[in-house]
């Protein structure tokens, strides 16, 4: 198992270098001299030369790339052009929101996806099956942003003043706020990774609420997450339901299921212990592969529900030509994506011993 993981880690290296190359190139391909972009049209030649020397732009391209990678390894992503704040600070502010959203969307989609898939497979070719699969087909064809708007309309307007009313936008209700953990716990000297971690935890409304036992904050944040998570998770739910159905049908047709039944085991036990466990391998894979889709969906959904996450910041940065921010966020997202795929592979190997021996 460990050998397998080490081999996989080595295979990731070229991809990581590629990601860095791509994100490095993004900022180099941007039309216009970065000096004039940053300092304005009227910058003189000497100020420009100073500027280039300060940011190492007068060095050769390979040297610049080396410097870029070294800075990234040191945790220095550069500064935002717009407000000059370090991008790591912006990431610590924005990433928790997207994490929460993706996490809850994933829980929603895997729970209901597997459930619907199992129901569909056990009632194969019945009206339930047909309707579920038609629903799943519609689910993958729906634009995430449209579903989000419809959910907001239904739960905030149509169901207004009923117990089902849910907030259509924002992260917290007015009057509820999050306190930075450094303040709550009285930590003053946090630097580097520790400061980043603390800031990250503070900015996650859910975790902040749990850690400080502020349950009002916790439940309010949760309530605001329901609609976005459902919107983001629906596509994945459909994909997972379809996969579960076909994987389960595949397993149910095999001989060992008949053997288990013939031994006199109850049907529910056979389904749970024999069939579902074997069907789980492709299901886990597909759940892991959904991460990319969920992250993409989060980007779209954040703009609809005005949530302060990575996606809304990235769109803002693109429209405002704030390239270091685009670059930094692209690196982070690609890294998350690559490492989730690694985790998927590892769990795959854990569930199916045959994968380990290539």
């Amino acid at each position: 198992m460990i050998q397998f993981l080490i081999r996989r880690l080595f295979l990731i290296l070229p991809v990581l270098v590629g990601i860095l190359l791509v994100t490095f190139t993004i900022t180099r391909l941007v039309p216009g001299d970065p000096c004039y972009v940053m300092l304005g049209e009227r910058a003189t030649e000497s100020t420009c030369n100073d500027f280039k020397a300060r940011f190492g732009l007068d060095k050769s391209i390979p040297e610049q790339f080396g410097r870029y990678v070294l800075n990234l390894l040191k945790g220095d992503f550069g500064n935002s052009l717009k407000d000059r704040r370090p991008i790591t600070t912006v990431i610590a502010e924005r990433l928790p929101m997207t994490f929460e959203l993706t996490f809850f969307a994933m829980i929603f989609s895997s729970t209901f996806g597997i459930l619907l898939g199992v129901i569909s497979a056990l009632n194969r070719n019945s009206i339930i099956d047909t309707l579920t699969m038609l629903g799943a087909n519609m689910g993958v064809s729906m634009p995430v942003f449209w579903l989000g708007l419809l959910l907001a309309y239904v739960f905030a307007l149509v169901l207004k003043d009923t117990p089902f009313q849910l907030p259509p936008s924002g992260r917290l209700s007015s009057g509820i706020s999050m306190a930075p953990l450094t303040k709550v716990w009285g930590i003053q000297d946090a630097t580097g990774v520790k400061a980043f971690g603390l800031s990250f935890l503070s900015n996650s409304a859910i975790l902040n609420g749990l850690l400080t036992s502020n349950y009002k904050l916790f439940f309010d944040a949760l309530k605001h997450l329901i609609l976005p998570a459902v919107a983001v998770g629906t596509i994945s739910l459909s994909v997972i339901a379809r996969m579960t159905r076909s994987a389960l049908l595949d397993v149910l047709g095999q001989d060992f299921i008949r053997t288990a039944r013939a031994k006199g085991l109850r049907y529910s036990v056979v389904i749970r212990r024999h069939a579902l466990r074997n069907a789980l391998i492709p299901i886990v894979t597909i759940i892991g592969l959904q991460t990319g889709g969920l992250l993409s969906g989060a980007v779209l959904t954040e703009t609809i529900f005005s949530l302060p996450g990575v996606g809304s910041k990235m769109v803002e940065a693109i429209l405002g030509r704030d390239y270091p921010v685009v670059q930094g966020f692209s690196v982070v997202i690609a890294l998350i994506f690559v490492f989730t795929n690694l985790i998927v592979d590892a769990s795959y190997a854990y569930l199916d011993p045959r994968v380990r021996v290539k």
Partner: protein
Amino acid sequence: MSLQEKEVPILSSETIRETASPFVIMSRRFFRHSSARLGLFLLGILVVCAVFAEQIAPYDPIVPLKNVKRRDTACIRIFGCPAEESQHLMGIDGNSRDLFSRIIFGARLSLQIGVSTISFAIVVGGLLGAIAGFVGGWVDDLIMRILDVLLAFPSLLLAIAIVAVLGPGLINALLAIAIVQIPVYARVVRASVVSVKELDFISASRALGASEIRILFSRIMPNALTPLIVQGTLGIATAILSAAALSFLGLGAEFPTPEWGLMLGEERNSVFNAPHLVFYPGIAIMITVLSFNLVGDGLRDALDPRLSNVN
């Protein structure tokens, strides 16, 4: 009784059972699924809308109308629309234009978007995959590793990043979507090329003196056609969704183009007072994407039974 005396039926066109042509077998398998039939039916409607948009749409999709209320709801004759008012099947949008006409013209644009981006991705990706598979060695490694990097980004986010470099606009958005799709087709073609290039009929062609280019394009490539058609149909669905998403974010089509994603984006703040302006464009996107998905699944079943699920 000896063998000779036994009556032997004469083989003629009347006595032997006609074997169906591959095309007939394929269509039979395709139409067996009710979902594929539904998909083809929806796609047919869309194509008719796209081709005859000028004839179907009652108003111009871009020029604002006079004497109408902005964001007015639908007014349909058979549902009691007064005769002195003009008929609007889906209501009026925020710029006093007939929403139904814009949706119809949007069908044309969406089909163009889907087909053009995927054609581009198939040509470029297919060529790269063919070269990688056919030449092999370090060329294969180089091409495929570069394409792997593209796959390391979530697709929509990569498209957004590419648009960031190229600048917002419909053409740039389409280019971004096409670039993101390239690795998929390169992999499909490469897999087919690798699986057939060592087979005997290739050696036979080579022995007959066929050039390498000819072998690649007229002997090997036809084998990649089936997976390409299936993947391409499903890819069109993805491309239309991505294009709508980029336009929705303001990174794709620009005012006043009748693009469904843009129409949704423009009116997203009026979802509470004029929900029809958000509802119809979304339904249009969903039906279009659904039709391509259903047809794609049907084609996969019909063209390559090995790929389809057991059910």
